[in-house]
């Protein structure tokens, strides 16, 4: 019995396999046939990670924003290839003197992908939706940028969420929404340019109004509209046609009624290839036409082979954080200073980071106003480090040190090598390092919640204000670092609330000095990430904020 019954499915399986093989063979041969670079050929771009949601509001992840920037637009945006804020969907804007009333003048004749027109009401519908979100949406995992820019919600369900800074959004007339906030902060106007606040059409908002985020903290199920293409509509140069989660591929289609210059590609595929070597090989093989996060060592060979490898300006910081609650030895300033002196950061910059990288003296790239030339510096001096550790009574210090196992980030090529160098340096001064590694998806929540005493992480700026760097980390108690310093937190709030640009910049410099005296972590480097394109592509202007607009790109 068994013999007979088990053979049939096998035969079927074999038949199916061979059919599938034939089918793929066919598909491949047609692809080879149509290799001409006309505008109908899909442009394939590989990223290091997959996107996590179709609704950018629900995430803080750069890989998702690469997709969402092509589909959704924000009131303001950054100039192409720069970090200056310019009009996006709002052609022009003004703020009241005290900085609490923001009036936007929308572009005329802007259409959403589903045919809705962009007007003040549509803008306010979006902001009101965000402000009134409830339940799982209020988790900082699902509304990270809303909470960092606008504080809380209409009704906060958790007392840890700060009060909302958002008051109202009113349509002054057809094309003039006015957004009111409780108090000025230097987050604005930069906050209005964040990709998380990409506007969706009123019809979309209506369709998704009753979709909830279910599940528990750390294990949320995102609503269906954010996982299956078809519901969401923005105003961007591309519409989202399909998101194949098994293949990690998003299909974008040119939006013919786009208000601005239509996109150069009819179809664009965003694919995830986590391995950097695999990305390079895919580009060399012609499977893809561009990819992000080029390994520093690959830049020259790729250029020599005729590929275009533009380098972005430096706008990031890589740091090693000290989580003071995860290991009490780190609460001792002398230990933190000793560890800082123990690490040869220059060697990391010289041998691992791309050309143009430099040692960071503070949690702030020097390309941004507010960078201070007078911060306390911690030069490489293993002898001094050893002495200081002995002074602090920590000759036998053992520290867990976390690094991500599976990714490279714009600020951090080869995390493992960087980890290796630092950990060898630390061991050289007598610290016992216990390596811990997580995959990226796991790494962020674990380091954010303060599980790792030492860990590598970094930040690429979202907009051109120091608060986006130092304010992100040190504007209040933060479980990523695990310390309280009310003086610092107050000074930070004061600086960010100062509407005078010059005074604010001076205050930021002072803050940077203060932070480096406290030394909550060791800034390691700022380095320029590269991006690669095939020879027959006119690449988009590369952005220091990694906010490339792919509608600018086209076939040569």
């Amino acid at each position, binding site marked *: 019995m068994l013999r007979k019954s088990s053979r049939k499915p096998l035969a079927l399986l074999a038949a199916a396999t061979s059919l599938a093989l034939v089918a793929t063979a066919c598909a491949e041969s047609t692809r080879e046939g149509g290799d001409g670079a006309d505008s109908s050929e899909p442009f394939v771009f590989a990223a290091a990670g997959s996107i996590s949601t179709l609704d950018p509001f629900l995430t803080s992840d750069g890989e998702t924003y690469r997709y969402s920037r092509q589909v959704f637009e924000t009131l303001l945006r950054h100039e192409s290839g720069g970090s200056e804020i310019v009009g996006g969907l709002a052609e022009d804007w003004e703020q009241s003197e005290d900085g609490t009333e923001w009036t936007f003048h929308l572009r005329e004749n802007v259409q959403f992908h589903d045919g809705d027109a962009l007007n003040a009401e549509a803008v306010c519908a979006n902001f009101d939706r965000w402000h009134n979100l409830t339940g799982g949406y209020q988790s900082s995992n699902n509304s990270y940028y809303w909470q960092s820019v606008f504080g809380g919600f209409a009704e906060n369900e958790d007392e840890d969420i700060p009060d909302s800074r958002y008051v109202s959004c009113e349509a002054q007339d057809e094309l003039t929404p006015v957004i009111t906030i409780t108090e000025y902060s230097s987050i604005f106007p930069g906050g209005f340019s964040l990709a998380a606040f990409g506007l969706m059409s009123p019809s979309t908002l209506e369709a998704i109004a009753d979709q909830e985020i279910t599940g528990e903290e750390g294990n949320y199920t995102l609503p269906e509209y954010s996982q299956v293409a078809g519901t969401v509509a923005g105003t961007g140069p591309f519409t989202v046609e399909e998101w194949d989660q098994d293949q990690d591929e998003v299909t974008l289609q040119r939006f013919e009624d786009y208000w601005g210059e239509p996109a150069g590609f009819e179809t664009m595929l965003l694919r995830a290839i986590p391995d950097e070597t695999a990305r390079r090989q895919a580009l060399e093989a012609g499977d893809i036409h561009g990819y992000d996060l080029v390994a520093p060592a690959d830049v020259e*060979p790729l250029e020599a082979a005729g590929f275009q490898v533009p380098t972005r300006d430096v706008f990031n910081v890589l740091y090693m954080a000290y989580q003071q609650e995860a290991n009490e030895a780190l609460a001792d300033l002398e230990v933190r200073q000793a560890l800082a002196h123990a690490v040869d950061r220059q060697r990391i910059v010289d041998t*691992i980071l791309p*050309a143009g990288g430099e040692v960071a003296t503070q949690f702030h790239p020097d390309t941004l106003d507010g960078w201070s030339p007078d911060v306390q510096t911690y030069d490489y001096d293993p002898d001094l480090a050893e002495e200081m550790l002995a002074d602090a009574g920590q000759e036998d210090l053992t520290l867990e040190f976390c690094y991500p196992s599976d990714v490279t980030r714009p600020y951090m090529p080869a995390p*493992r090598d960087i980890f290796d160098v630092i950990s060898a340096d630390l061991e050289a001064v007598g610290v016992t390092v216990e390596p811990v590694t997580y995959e990226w998806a796991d790494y962020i929540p674990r380091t954010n919640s303060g599980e790792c005493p030492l860990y590598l992480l970094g930040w690429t700026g979202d907009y051109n204000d120091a608060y986006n760097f130092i304010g992100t980390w040190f504007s209040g108690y933060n479980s990523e670092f695990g310390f309280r310093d009310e003086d610092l937190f107050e000074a930070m709030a004061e600086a960010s609330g100062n509407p005078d640009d010059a005074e604010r910049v001076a205050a930021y410099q002072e803050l940077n000095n203060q932070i480096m005296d406290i030394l909550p972590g060791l800034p390691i480097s700022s380095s320029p990430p590269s991006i690669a394109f095939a020879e027959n592509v006119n690449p988009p202007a590369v952005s220091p904020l990694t906010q490339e607009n792919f509608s600018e790109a086209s076939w040569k």
Partner: protein
Amino acid sequence: MTTPPSSQNPAGTGTRGGAAPLLGRKAAKVDRLAELMGERGDDGHGAGVWREAFLRMRRSPMAISGAVIVTVFVLVALFSPLIAPYSPTAQTWGAEVFPNRNVFVGPRAENLLGLDNLGRDQFSRMVIGARQTLLVGVVATLVGFCVGALLGGSAGAAASLGGAWGRRFDNVVMRVIDMMLALPTLLLAVTVAALIGPSLTTVMIAVGVAQIPIFARLLRGAMISQGSRDYVLAAQALGVRKRRIALAHILPNSMGPVIVQSTLTLATAIIDAAALSYLGLGNPDPAFPEWGTMLADAQRFLSSAPSLAVYPALAIIVTALGFTLLGEAMREALDPKVRK
């Protein structure tokens, strides 16, 4: 020389034939080994067989090359701290290599195999890596051997001596083993490793677990084929207790194929361990040298420093080859069909 009665053929009953051809082949190979070795009890002087096999192996070039490779490998692994000129984790020459600009340092007087991408002595890393590899190989094989022998031995003893209930027990155990055997070894190992989380112990357990079904099936087959021998019948007729028959008579006579398999398994274990480390499921400390990890790491620099990948790759291949040659030669030397 009598062949065992076909009803006692350790190739097993019904299910195997119907299962996937791959499983069939793998199982058939294991069973064939068990069957061959089971026959050697016939000539009645066990020690002579091993002696004879040793003499035969001494004349086989395959065995000699295998033995040489294995000996060198084991010696290097055991005395690696004495052989390695430098610490494998010290980035002594860290300022001389620039992986970001494709500048590497090849073999030179103080570094026989050059430097790796962080300025560590590649030769020292290879040598210390051998120790890690031997450790993983031996422990993994031991895990597979012990658990497999326990399962297979009890199943085999139950089947040949335990009557109807014994055969039922044997059936249940063997179907579970068959299920494990149906999974590709590496897939099984990856599954186990993913469940426990990355560490060196994980690799040992994972690779060991993947070897369990082979050992279990092998020992059980050999024991069943022994179970039908006259001496077992005689012991039973004399009223020797069943447990004693199984442990003191059948088991010792069935160990031959299992020992041969251990040698072959060491080769597979080394490759599997390297594969798991390569996939990032090994020791999370990247500084500690392990051939699989080194290979995975060097892959990034394949175009500019291919030698970084070639050394560990060659080492893995040659070591696995050594154990395979030795194991195969041993199997051939003990094979009664070839012997006659």
